[in-house]
């Protein structure tokens, strides 16, 4: 097991390198640069600025320097926030984003599973129809539509919750963003859970369990749930990716001080260091989460266990 984890982690390093390289050159290929503001800078000032950030060097040198920085976790300075390093900015925003993302994933998994199980147990019933209709809507409507609707309803019409901001970081501030982030994921997980439950329920071994005289509750919990959860488990990787991309948008809409907002600002301002730092963070999180999912998969399904 330890060897397996090590192997997977070492595969993660080249993956990360490819992502870093691709993002680095894509960012540089985008037109404009960090100092192309609306006011035209004096050429001498611009040259000085660029020299101080090392942007006057050939792109190959810049790339190698950047990689060198990475080996000691230095993402370089931010051009948008000249007095702060990228590391500091990320450390600032990470707690907010982490809280948002993890809560959304947890919420999506719990509610999605619950809704899917209820739908499957009432197959073709009214409840099933209602849940599946909502789920279809949930999948079809993206975050950036859900978020303003939630704000409009709970923030402005009902005046129950603040429309934006982080305030003191209490529940009333992060409830709407988390819901906006989780809703599409709840819908997807509910659909997967339902179909996987239905498939498992018709398995031969479930019939065996019933023939053994096991009460339905035991059949469900001991014989069905674990197998039925497997496809949901595999989907948690993509859920994490969706939550990460979703958080960039949701943080922007609710103006939350997370790293998603830095990401958007960084991209607009061509703040190369900031964008690269966040890309690396997101990629690492996703690689780790996928590894976690695979480990959990083996734990759930003895057939998938690595020897």
């Amino acid at each position: 097991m330890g060897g397996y984890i090590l192997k997977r982690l070492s595969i993660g390093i080249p993956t990360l390198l490819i992502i870093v390289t691709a993002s680095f050159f894509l960012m540089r290929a985008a037109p404009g640069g960090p100092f192309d503001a609306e006011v035209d800078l004096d050429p001498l000032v611009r040259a000085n600025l660029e020299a101080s950030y090392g942007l006057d060097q050939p792109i190959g040198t810049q790339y190698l320097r950047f990689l060198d920085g990475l080996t000691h976790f230095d993402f370089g300075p931010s051009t948008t926030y000249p007095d702060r390093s990228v590391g500091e900015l990320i450390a600032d925003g990470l707690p907010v984003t982490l809280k948002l993302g993890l809560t959304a994933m947890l919420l999506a998994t719990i509610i999605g599973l619950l809704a899917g199980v209820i739908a499957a147990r009432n197959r073709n019933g009214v409840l099933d129809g209602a849940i599946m209709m909502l789920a279809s809507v949930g999948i079809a409507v993206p975050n950036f539509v859900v978020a303003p609707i939630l704000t409009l309803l709970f923030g402005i019409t009902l005046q129950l919750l603040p429309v934006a901001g982080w305030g003191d970081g209490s529940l009333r501030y992060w409830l709407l963003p988390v819901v906006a982030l989780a809703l599409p994921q709840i819908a997807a997980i509910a659909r997967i859970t339902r179909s996987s439950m239905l498939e498992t329920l018709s398995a031969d071994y479930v019939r065996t369990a019933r023939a053994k005289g096991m009460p339905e509750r035991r059949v469900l919990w001991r014989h069905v749930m674990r197998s039925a959860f497997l496809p949901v488990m595999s989907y948690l990787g993509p859920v994490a990716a969706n939550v990460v991309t979703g958080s960039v948008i949701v943080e922007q809409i609710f103006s939350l001080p997370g790293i998603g907002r830095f990401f958007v600002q960084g991209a607009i301002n061509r703040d190369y260091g900031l964008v690269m730092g966040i890309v690396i963070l997101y990629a690492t999180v996703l690689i780790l989460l996928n590894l976690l999912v695979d480990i959990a998969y083996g734990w759930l399904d003895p057939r998938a266990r690595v020897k």
Partner: protein
Amino acid sequence: MALLDVDDLRVTFRTPRGELQAVKGVSFQVEPGRCLGIVGESGSGKSQTMLGLLGLLPENGVVSGSALFEGQELIGMPRRTLDRLRGDRISLVFQDSITGLTPHMRIGDQLAEMLQVHRGLKRKDALDNARSMLDVVRISEPERRLRQYPHELSGGMRQRVMIAMALLCKPLLLIADEPTTALDVTVQATIIQQFAKLKQHAQTAIILITHDLGVVAGVCDEVAVMYSGRIVEHGPAADLFAAPAHPYTRGLLACTPRIDRPMDGPLPTIPGTPPPISQSFSGCAFAPRCAHADDACATTRPHVRRQGTLSAACLKVPL
């Protein structure tokens, strides 16, 4: 009173293309300590009869008729009452044992849970019992098997685990659907001996569903032959094998290779194939394949006629 008394059992499946009758009125009795063999080609309704009996049909299956077990009506019995019988007093060995065990549960837990649920045993005691039952069905290294998962066992071993599972609670009635098909002949013989012993010593009633006439001859006291959802011939095993009354049974027996007779030429077969269950007949379902059939067979539903100890649903009996 018979241990199990089945009367006019019918199984219908509701499908998008209309209702399909898989079992069209089957009646039989089983006494304690006796073994009934149910024989027929695949699709003849053998398995569906047993699943219907125990409330194990898929959602679109409907069962009607009557099945009294120790005087209690099984058809329409509430799930909780049924759960007390299933696995405890009536147990079932399924045909598809390869997929019949829960993949994420250890063999030991799947066996033990029966004793835990039905007998209220502690897990440890239940596992002890399970281990000795694995010995009975000749599984090597039972201690290790208990900790293994189904995918770590061979197909034959899984089948024997299923049989062990069915015997664990010492049922009054054992229904075995092709229990030995997946096993090699030596293990098959052991299992059949085991069944014979159960019948003799524990007075267990057995229903053995199979297409293997050799197995039937070895252990069954009575045989019912099914064709297209109906029992076409029924009687004591010895008489049925010696002089079958129904043309279909004759055909089946002729198709069985025998070691005591020289083989000259290819193995005989019954011409044609069984009718699809969607097809309905006003006459005899076997008539299209029957060498003895005439116009009357195609239009008149054959009623049961006696030939000695055998009863056969055929207009031409006695042939």
